[in-house]
């Protein structure tokens, strides 16, 4: 049995844009995910961060096969799952589950909690009615809800409790992988901590593997073992949590880290922020060369706007897609704008891995 539970290679999802008077023809594509590769080891948490529109949610749905990827391969537990038919996918669906962002919209308001949590058991025809009920009550207890609330409806619960129901539903048939799409971003801080702790506890207890998608760098740091940073449909940096937060190599990661507000007035005011100019470009018409170059403080004309950087190893397991990766951290804006003298050779090392 391999160490890797999930291996994603060159995953792409392009949404076609069509035009035409009676016959529709494709005139362009929204490149929501455009060639992302990564692996997730058994029992670890891979955090995926990026701003809205970077393609992180689309990627999650492609992995789950909730939408059909345009290209690329997804190997789950040693089995290629792209191209599998619905029927072939069924046993695999039992092993990967998803927790969604909105605890208000993701639970059917007309179903009782027992039915919601037990749904997967029923779909996969596991156990008798009494067994299902016992299992559901056990699950409710595991996620910290009162098992007696089996017959209540979702609206009788608060946001945090609903997210617990969502987690219980995902746990129902002992999955190997849980993909969490922004599971705490709709919750208040104190409730968010409860859910994060719960997810960590469950991971220890059941040996779960998580892909944890979020835009909040604090949350991702807290829960992840390794972190993938996405920008405009591309993976720009992957590293272990400590590597990424202490020695970010990609200028975008640096800018993200420096933008996070720190709840300490002295540190917050002393620190030098790297402010990015402008907005994220449209994935309909992405920039040439490096996708980040129009906003990048280290942008080198002639290099960054021409050649597309590859995601290559910078040090050990730390991989970055940049022609001029950061030499050290922290850095202020001026230092960042002037890459070291060896930058031109840096461009060389960026294409051929050291």
């Amino acid at each position, binding site marked *: 049995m391999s160490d890797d539970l999930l291996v994603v290679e060159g995953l792409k999802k392009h949404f076609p844009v069509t035009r035409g008077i009676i016959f529709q023809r494709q005139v362009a594509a929204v490149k929501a995910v455009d060639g992302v590769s990564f692996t997730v080891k058994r029992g670890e948490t891979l955090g995926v961060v990026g*701003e*809205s529109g970077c393609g992180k949610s689309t990627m999650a749905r492609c992995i789950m096969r909730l939408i059909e990827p345009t290209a690329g391969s997804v190997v789950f537990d040693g089995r290629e799952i792209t191209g599998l038919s619905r029927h072939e996918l069924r046993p695999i669906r039992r092993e990967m589950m998803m927790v969604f962002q909105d605890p208000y919209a993701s639970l059917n308001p007309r179903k009782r909690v027992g039915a919601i949590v037990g749904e997967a058991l029923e779909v996969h025809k596991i156990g008798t009615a009494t067994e299902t009920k016992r299992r559901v009550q056990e699950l409710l207890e595991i996620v910290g809800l009162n098992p007696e609330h089996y017959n209540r409806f979702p609206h009788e619960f*608060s946001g*945090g*409790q609903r997210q617990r129901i969502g987690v219980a539903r995902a746990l129902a048939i002992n999955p190997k992988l849980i993909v969490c799409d922004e599971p705490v971003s709709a919750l*208040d*801080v*104190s*409730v*968010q*901590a*409860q859910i*994060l*702790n719960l997810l*960590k506890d469950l991971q220890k207890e059941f040996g779960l593997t998580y892909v944890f998608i979020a*835009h*909040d*760098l*604090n*949350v991702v*740091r*807290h*829960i992840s073992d390794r972190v993938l940073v996405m920008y405009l449909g591309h993976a720009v940096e992957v590293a272990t949590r400590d590597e990424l*937060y202490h020695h970010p190599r990609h200028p975008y990661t640096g*800018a*993200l*880290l*420096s*933008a*996070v*507000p*720190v*709840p*300490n*007035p*002295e*540190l*917050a*005011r002393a620190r030098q*922020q790297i*402010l*990015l100019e*402008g*907005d*994220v470009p449209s994935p309909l018409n992405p920039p040439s060369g490096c996708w980040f170059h129009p906003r990048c403080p280290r942008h080198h004309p002639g290099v960054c706007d021409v050649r597309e950087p590859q995601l290559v190893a910078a040090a050990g397991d730390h991989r970055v897609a940049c022609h001029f990766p950061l030499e050290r951290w922290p850095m202020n804006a001026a230092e960042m704008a002037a890459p070291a003298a060896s930058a031109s050779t840096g461009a060389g090392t960026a294409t051929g891995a050291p």
Partner: protein
Amino acid sequence: MALLDVRDLHTTFRTDDGLVKAVDGVSFTVEPGKTLGIVGESGSGKSVTCLTIMGLNDRRSASTSGQALFKGADLLAMPKNELRALRGNEISMIFQDPMTSLNPVHTIGRQLVEAVHLHQDVSRSSARSQSLDVLKAVGIPNAERRIDDYPHQFSGGMRQRVMIAMALINHPDLLIADEPTTALDVTTQAQILKLMDTLQKEYGSAIVMITHDLGVVAEIADDVVVMYGAQVVERATAEELFARPSMPYTWGLLGSLPRIDHDVERLAQIPGTPPSLLNPPSGCRFHPRCTYAMSICQSEQPPLASATGSETHLSRCHLDQATRLTEIKKLESGHFAEVT
């Protein structure tokens, strides 16, 4: 004299389920040119407090008492047209969601010009040139061309800049910002916070910043009010609050934040959920969730009193001084230790 002096503010909404006390005896002051941060979770009453001060609550269901003295005049008692003359002129407000806060069928130029004409008796061309100037000041690229664009043609960050431009166009003395960066991405949030800081220095406006994010407060606020269950539970300067938080809810808030600047294995979680304002707990509003709760906490509401001997630092808690100081010490040495 304080620019804004809110005294014992109460706001109650009539709903089908009964009376909701959304704001229950809130007092604070805002000094000219300074920034006050109001922090709290959803339902803590922070937004309603500010909407009440602005007179923007639904008149049919809300009733209000207390005072909100702006430059000495009570905003809650003044005639409607006087308040209207202040709104958007001397006090302005920006909102959480820049996507829905601009009228989709008018160009942003028209909406800015409207804001000018509501308070200044100037020509169309003068109003337009003022609008153009303020758009440039908030950093809209190609302002000359973009002034005639519609809101949907702007990104979220740019729309929030337009909202700020509209709020500042009449040079207000007080700007109330209700979660202005919550709907934005982190890099855009950094841009907007920086912009607000720069403009504050330039225009000299005081800012009331409503947020749920303690990080944002640490970045921008001079003074902080922490709200819980429709009440102020702690009031301090930003330095004091983050260095010596003095009541269990604030401890819990700080402890439950996952932080980029240091690691913890487990977050200090606050058990339970925020209180219902329809039927709030007796005594201290926080006692059902408080790990330090004593029997007095159930029966008696603690007053907002000086916590650490400092006059600017008030909190609402029955714990005695000594216990609080030892707890703060403990937290300082453990969880709040800064890893640099």
